[in-house]
């Protein structure tokens, strides 16, 4: 390293001052942005504060504004779905389940479109690859429930967003259908077992076996309803 000439020294000092000036200027600009937000949030809280308390006092019908590009829960227009299952293949965490059925006309219909809401990370890959544009991300943001069962398949049942969000009435209805089905099975089993009453332990086993399939098929029956009238999903 040779000796610095006077010009080099002067240049260094100039650069030092330039750097400090740049730092101060950008710092003030940043402070101005945050300061404006702070003052506005105190002067006009109604307009500026965009979050709402997530404490149960807000209902889905509260008309909460969401951003233009917000990604909420997945939503499927069943009439538009051709059952190609590209979304299932694309999903990086495998949280979509799709079953398809062929109708009498030979057309492929989706009979089940389930999303494990506890897994979904709202990346939007499935929406990007959907060839018909039937799969969209809705503006539905409310994901809180009082039971973990609602989000997972603990009951052998996933939360079915293809058929729209389950309202409490729908949930009750589903529950009632499931119980009816279970009772019907039980009755059938009892009827079948009546002629020759078997020992108690096999009965329990039969009952358990009889129960599980009904529960597993419950969502598909729930999805089957919108197939008949495809306008229902998630109003």
């Amino acid at each position, binding site marked *: 390293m040779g000796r610095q000439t006077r010009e080099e020294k002067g240049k260094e000092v100039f650069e*030092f001052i330039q*750097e*400090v000036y740049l*730092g101060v200027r950008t*710092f*003030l600009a*940043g*402070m*101005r*942005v*945050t*300061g*404006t*937000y*702070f003052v506005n*949030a*105190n002067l006009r809280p109604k307009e*500026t*504060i*965009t*979050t*709402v*308390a997530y*404490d149960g006092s807000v209902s889905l019908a509260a008309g909460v504004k969401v951003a*233009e*590009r917000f*990604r909420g829960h997945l939503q499927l227009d069943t009439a538009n779905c051709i059952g190609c299952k590209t979304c299932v293949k694309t999903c990086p965490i495998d949280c979509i389940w799709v079953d398809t059925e062929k109708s009498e006309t030979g057309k492929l219909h989706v009979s089940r479109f389930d999303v494990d809401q506890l897994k979904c990370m709202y990346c*939007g890959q499935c*929406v*990007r690859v959907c060839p018909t*544009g039937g799969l*969209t*991300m809705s503006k539905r943001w409310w994901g809180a429930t009082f039971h973990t069962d609602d989000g997972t398949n603990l009951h052998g049942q996933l939360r079915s967003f293809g058929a729209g969000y389950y309202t409490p009435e729908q949930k009750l209805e589903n529950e009632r259908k499931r119980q009816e089905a279970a009772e019907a099975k039980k009755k059938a089993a009892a009827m079948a077992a009546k002629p020759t009453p078997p020992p108690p332990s096999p009965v329990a086993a039969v009952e358990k076996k009889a129960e599980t399939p009904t529960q597993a098929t419950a969502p598909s029956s729930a999805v089957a309803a919108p197939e008949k009238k495809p306008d229902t999903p998630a109003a």
Partner: protein
Amino acid sequence: MPDLYHFLVTHWGLSVATSALIAVFVACAVVVGTVLFVVGFSTYVERKVAADIQRRIGPNQCNLGPFFGELLRVVVENGKLPQAGALGRAMAAACKPFQRPLSVLDRILGRLAPGVLIFMADGLKLILKEDIIPDAVDKPLFRAAPYIVLASALGGLAVLPFSDKLYIADFNIGIFYIAAITSLEVLGILMAGWASNNKWALLGGMRSAAQIVSYELPVGLAIATVVLVSGTLSMQGICYSQLALHPGSDWHSSGWFWQWNIFHPAMFVLAPAYFLASLAECNRTPFDIPEAESELVAGYHTEYSGMRFSLFFMAEYAMMVVTSAVAVTLFLGGWSTGLGPLEWAMMAEPPGFDAAGVMTQPVYAWYGWLVHLLAFGLKTYALILLMMWIRWTLPRFRVDQVMGLCWKKLIPISLACLLCTASWMVVRMMLAEQLGATLLEHITFWLRAAFALGVTAWLVWYFRRPIAPEEVAAQEEVLAQAGPGPLP
């Protein structure tokens, strides 16, 4: 405190030792209690400031209602039960009249400062939590570290000039004492990091040591510059010197805010440098690399829980209070209100000059200390708010950036300011000989007034000016380039 001591000696006739003991104890209890309350309140304010800057609501749940109202309701309901005894009924009767006033108060407080009791709830929670001490730690050091950190932060309170009469002590080496005792904090942090037997904690402690040792230099240079101007190390002396009285000057030209040190041209550069360095000294963002949670789990207090953790937490905020108060004392006139006529009106006895030409300090009327306390508190809290504002504006620096900022920017700037101030004092002496002291006083007074008012006006204009159309256009262009996002 000295007033209290003299009062005890002369009026109550206590012995010197007893009255000194009582005076010290009372003064320390009052100051430490107040500051710890401010510390707790600051945690709430910090969350609220963060929420406002990020357009969130912030803490809003923990009001009087859930806190005390529920307690009252339970007691009253209990009294109504058939199996309630005489004591239960008496307690219910005692609590019932407080229910209505409490609900009214709750509504008012909930509107003014929703969720303000969260810091009490937090403190209660931290006290009740289990104090976990891992097996592999160095136990004596691990236990002692939080106390050292908190004690060094609170130790700085001893010489703060809260008001012209209200202070614990006024050493003649006050500012030196503060610089010494607040940098003891690094000892506690290093102890915590070492004793935890955890690599993240050790890294945090080492980073803190490197950072605080480096940033002592700009702080020391800033203090030296102020001492050069004030001619004293005593905190009260520095405050009095910023009333800006010099031999030959008229006392009616004193007490204005442009006579504070910050509006001295060299100090105007130095004060922000000092403020940044003090941010680094109390490990605040953007210099919080010792507890950078994205790199080191929680830094030096990774292994701490419960009350010991909260001691570290309180120490950080107490350190904020102390460094802000020191910055106010050094650069913002201490307890001076900065409004000339108000200061003159409060002076029972205007300052003068004794036979040797040394300034005698003004004596304030009985209510003077209250106004000064208010001014000092407001200025200190404004600086604390500035710290919070900076925290929620700037991202965290990298380690080498922190060191680079200190060694390559702050230290040269502070040194240059020290040299400028020193040479200005020599030039000033020469000018005073040429022009006469009075004329020089008048010239500097009006120049500083113009400078201070100009700077204030520029800052107000800068932060209040409407956003220019081209700025909006630039933002929209950026948004347009970003496109509608990955989703249709």
